[in-house]
């Protein structure tokens, strides 16, 4: 942890005052980080335990249990797909949303398409630099809000089922299904391109070339993240190039 308050460049046209002053390290650690870790560990362990509930209830109520050989074979396939992401996702996303953000994102999922954009917008609205204590808290607020909105939306979606979406014209449904997600990726990339314009082309090339070579996602994602990071670190150390404020 760094010591004392951090003062950085003014951020024009945002909620932050002319000179950015970070939250002091003492209160941040004792009044925020400490309870975040305590409740974060308890709730993520509780969620892990609750994941066994459906299988247990299915057995207790209906007497139906899956055979072990089917479970083992299914788990083998499922883990092959999931294990690389258990490691890659928290390491890759942590710098953006911090400790509380990581607990929430790893509990509620939909990180890249929902949690990260909400964290990024919250930080942009507040005009706080990423990597600061204030930035981590504001990113966390963005994620927490997305959890509430998501729970309400998914509940309504599940209860009302097809009724809501069937009232939409076909063209709109098609547009959502086909193009919303690519537009999300592009929009967040565009927002951050303003912050670090010199990383844009390398980031696209580092990801794009392996994709053209049809390398699997679990190889290309860490390559894209750590490749861009390595280049950014080099540019910072060699030429003192760092992202613009806000």
């Amino acid at each position, binding site marked *: 942890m760094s010591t004392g308050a951090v003062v950085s460049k003014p951020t024009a046209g945002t909620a932050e005052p002319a000179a950015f002053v970070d939250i002091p390290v003492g209160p941040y650690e004792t009044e925020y980080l400490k309870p975040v870790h305590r409740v974060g560990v308890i709730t993520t362990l509780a969620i892990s335990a609750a994941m066994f509930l459906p299988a247990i209830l299915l057995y207790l109520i209906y007497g139906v249990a899956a055979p072990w050989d089917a479970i083992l074979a299914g788990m083998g396939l499922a883990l092959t797909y999931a294990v690389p992401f258990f490691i890659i996702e928290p390491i890759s996303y*942590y710098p953006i949303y911090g400790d509380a953000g990581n607990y929430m994102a790893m509990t509620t999922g939909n990180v890249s398409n929902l949690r990260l954009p909400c964290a990024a917008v919250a930080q942009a609205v507040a005009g706080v630099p990423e990597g600061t204590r204030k930035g981590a808290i504001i990113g966390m607020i963005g994620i927490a809000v997305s*959890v509430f909105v998501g729970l309400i939306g998914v509940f309504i979606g*599940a209860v009302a089922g097809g009724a809501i979406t069937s009232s939409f014209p076909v063209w709109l449904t098609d547009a959502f299904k086909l193009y919303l997600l690519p537009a999300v990726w592009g929009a967040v990339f565009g927002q951050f391109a303003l912050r*670090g314009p010199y990383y844009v082309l390398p980031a696209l090339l580092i990801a794009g070339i392996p994709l053209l070579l049809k390398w699997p996602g679990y190889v290309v994602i860490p390559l894209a993240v750590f*490749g861009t990071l390595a280049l950014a670190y080099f540019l910072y150390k060699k030429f003192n190039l760092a992202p613009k404020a806000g």
Partner: protein
Amino acid sequence: MDWKFIANQPWLWIAGLIQASIGAFQAWYFFRLGTRLLEKHGNYHRKEVGGIVRGAVITSIGPILAEIFVMLALIIAISPAYAWQREGVGVGSVFTELVQVSNAAVGAGQEFGTESFNMMGFATAMVVVNVSCIGWSLGAAFFTRYLGTAREKISRGDTRLLAVISVAATLGIFGYYAANEANKGGGREIAVLAGAILSAFLFKLADWIHLPRLKEWALGIAMFGGMMIAYLVHGGSQ
């Protein structure tokens, strides 16, 4: 008994409600803790926190609507209760979910989405999809506190370097997703480009005209704008 009937009974709605309650409590606790600290030590007032919340609500509407659309696949293929249980506090996205149900079905010697998928396939899926995602939550429980330490050791308190790490990591991740979609060509490529240009323009515009509230809407407008431009240019075929 028909597995489709069992799959939409109260037990699964309740299991989903318990998981959702844990997720909601966690988010509420962190939110309360963070806003209190911002007001006490961060020179923030309720009005400014309100702006941050508004921006996050606006940004989350698009992806959540999209999730509900894709969730229809789960509702149709399995049940509304299953969709709620998995997506309320779903650790994986709907796309991951569909892959994992298919993997579970293969493990049970069946094929998801066909007549061969029966009660055994459903019971296997209930175990596999739920238990296989525990890696994320257990990883968070045991390793989150060390992620911060590792990052601090790397940066040694240099906040400019932390900004370098954050912005480069974000561009690396979204560069991958954007390049992956653009690589498919057609309307998806247009959606990526239109979303990126609109977003960059709107964030810049907010600074030019000194209207910070525009930033609350920028990402939401860019997402829908990118989506609509892609549809208008390329239509409903990929």
